[in-house]
């Protein structure tokens, strides 16, 4: 062997020795760490044991007093322990009786429970599982179960579950849904009915109007002024009648048609209304500050402002009419006010005017339904409506709308 080769091997040997020394050192450190960890584990284990002993009596109390049924079973469903609530729920006579929970599952839900049990084993717990059982007394019950696996040294040994009888809650829920469905149906029917009635009432009015017109047209030379005037009165009466039918339909529609809420820009809405409404030259409508955007139904909010503003305009008797719209942020709601300098409303009528068919001033263009529609719309937006008024000075309507 050449000297070179010997040197090389010696160097390799030296390297290996050093590496081994290092490994030994690491091993030594690890052993020390391991020992320390074991010591800590032992300490916490004994602490845990002490705690367990201490809390065991407390747990026993909880176990007995818990309102829900509490069951501990082995992994095959055999009941190991149960509290009094569980005895009652499952139909046993006392807690020492033997039973298997799997045997109590209703045949229709067996598959579901098997699946749930598989999940319980793989996940360690299941929550909000609902299935039907048949109690020892042969009573069917719907139960709600939350369960978890009990482990011993990392191995699953048993399962514990809290079982609640939801048979009644469930049937109440079903009943409630049925009632709601029925209510919706009858609401729709009512709505449909209102439309049909309104159609059937309006048709004869249209016919009368046409017939009156024809008689007038065909006999223009033969009729005297009084007769012409009387014919005109018939037409006015028909118009009033039609308005009444429209308003009743509108009143019954508010609240029953779709409740699609959207963000409504009230500033834009008022601007639009000013174009639609007939505002006499001597009346000005002022919006005192920018109006907010609120969540609501646009058509109904428009109806609300339209009715109040046109009411304000209608009852202005001054040479310079003024309608002022203002708003105040009051937390959960906005408080709006619509103020006019019209004829005012006596205090004794302040409640009455919101009731249907209570027009204070019988005239061609008031049917007594406008304000009751207003009230219904405000109610629909979870608000209130009231007014302040002095006869001859004017009226301010206040109302709140939910933001």
């Amino acid at each position, binding site marked *: 062997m050449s000297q070179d080769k010997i040197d090389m091997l010696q160097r390799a040997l030296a390297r290996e020795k050093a590496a081994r020394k290092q490994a030994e050192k690491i091993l030594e450190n690890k052993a020390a760490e391991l020992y320390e960890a074991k010591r800590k584990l032992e300490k916490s284990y004994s602490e845990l044991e002490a705690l367990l002993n201490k809390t065991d009596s407390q747990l026993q109390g909880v176990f007995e007093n818990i309102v829900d049924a509490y069951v501990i079973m082995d992994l095959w469903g055999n009941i190991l322990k149960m509290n009094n609530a569980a005895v009652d729920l499952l139909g046993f006579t006392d807690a020492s009786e033997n039973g298997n929970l799997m045997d109590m599952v209703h045949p229709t839900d067996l598959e579901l429970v098997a699946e749930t049990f598989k999940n319980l084993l793989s996940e360690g717990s299941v929550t909000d599982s609902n299935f039907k059982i048949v109690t020892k007394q042969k009573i069917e019950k719907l139960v709600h179960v939350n369960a978890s696996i009990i482990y011993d040294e990392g191995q699953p040994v048993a399962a514990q579950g809290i079982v609640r009888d939801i048979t009644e809650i469930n049937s109440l829920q079903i009943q409630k849904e049925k009632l709601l469905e029925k209510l919706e149906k009858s609401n729709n029917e009512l709505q449909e009915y209102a*439309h*049909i009635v*309104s*159609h*059937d009432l*309006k*048709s004869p*009015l*249209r*016919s009368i*109007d*046409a*017939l009156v*017109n*024809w008689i007038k047209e065909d006999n223009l030379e033969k009729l005297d002024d009084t007769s012409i005037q009387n014919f005109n009165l018939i*037409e006015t009466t*028909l*118009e009033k009648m*039609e308005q009444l039918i429209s308003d009743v339909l509108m009143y019954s529609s508010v609240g029953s*048609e779709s409740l699609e809420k959207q963000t409504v820009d009230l500033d834009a809405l008022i601007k639009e209304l000013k174009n639609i409404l007939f505002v006499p030259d001597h009346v000005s409508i002022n919006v005192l500050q920018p109006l907010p955007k609120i969540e609501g139904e646009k058509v109904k909010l428009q109806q609300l402002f339209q009715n109040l503003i046109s009411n304000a305009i209608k009852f202005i008797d001054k040479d310079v009419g003024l309608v002022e719209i203002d708003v105040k942020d009051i937390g959960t709601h906005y408080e709006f006010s619509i103020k006019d300098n019209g004829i005012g409303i006596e205090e004794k009528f302040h409640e009455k005017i919101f009731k249907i068919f209570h027009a204070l001033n019988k005239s061609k263009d008031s049917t007594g339904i406008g304000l009751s529609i207003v009230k219904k719309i405000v109610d629909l937006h979870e608000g209130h409506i009231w007014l302040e008024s002095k006869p001859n000075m004017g009226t301010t309507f206040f109302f709140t709308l939910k933001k």
Partner: protein
Amino acid sequence: MINIRETMNTLNILLIEDDMIEVMKLNRTISKLELPHNIVEANNGEEALKILQKKDELPDIILLDLNMPKLNGIEFLNILKKDDVLKYIPTIILTTSNNQKDLLECYRIGIAGYVLKPLKYEDYVSKIETLLGYWSINELKQI
């Protein structure tokens, strides 16, 4: 400038309406306005379908009331729009019902207009004048 009246088409109108006075109203309106159009009357949807069986005498437009006994307006419309020939006839609803549900349903099935019958006869006359004026300047399918 051309004289609009002279370029107007004479329309064959099928009026489907169960109310006798409504039928009288349309007839009287047309004669009052001295319009050249022809009106064929049907008292309900069933009768209208019978009239529409004669494929060589189909109307140019249909005026359709919604609330009718037997076959109502919407049912009639459904049948009409499923027919390969009849579906081309412009159908205008002439009704009292401003029920949004009816209106949406009609437009969904396919209509050429939705006109509310007004209370006042004069308003009716001017609505019909506008409506027929519009359709008589339209190019219609030659059947």
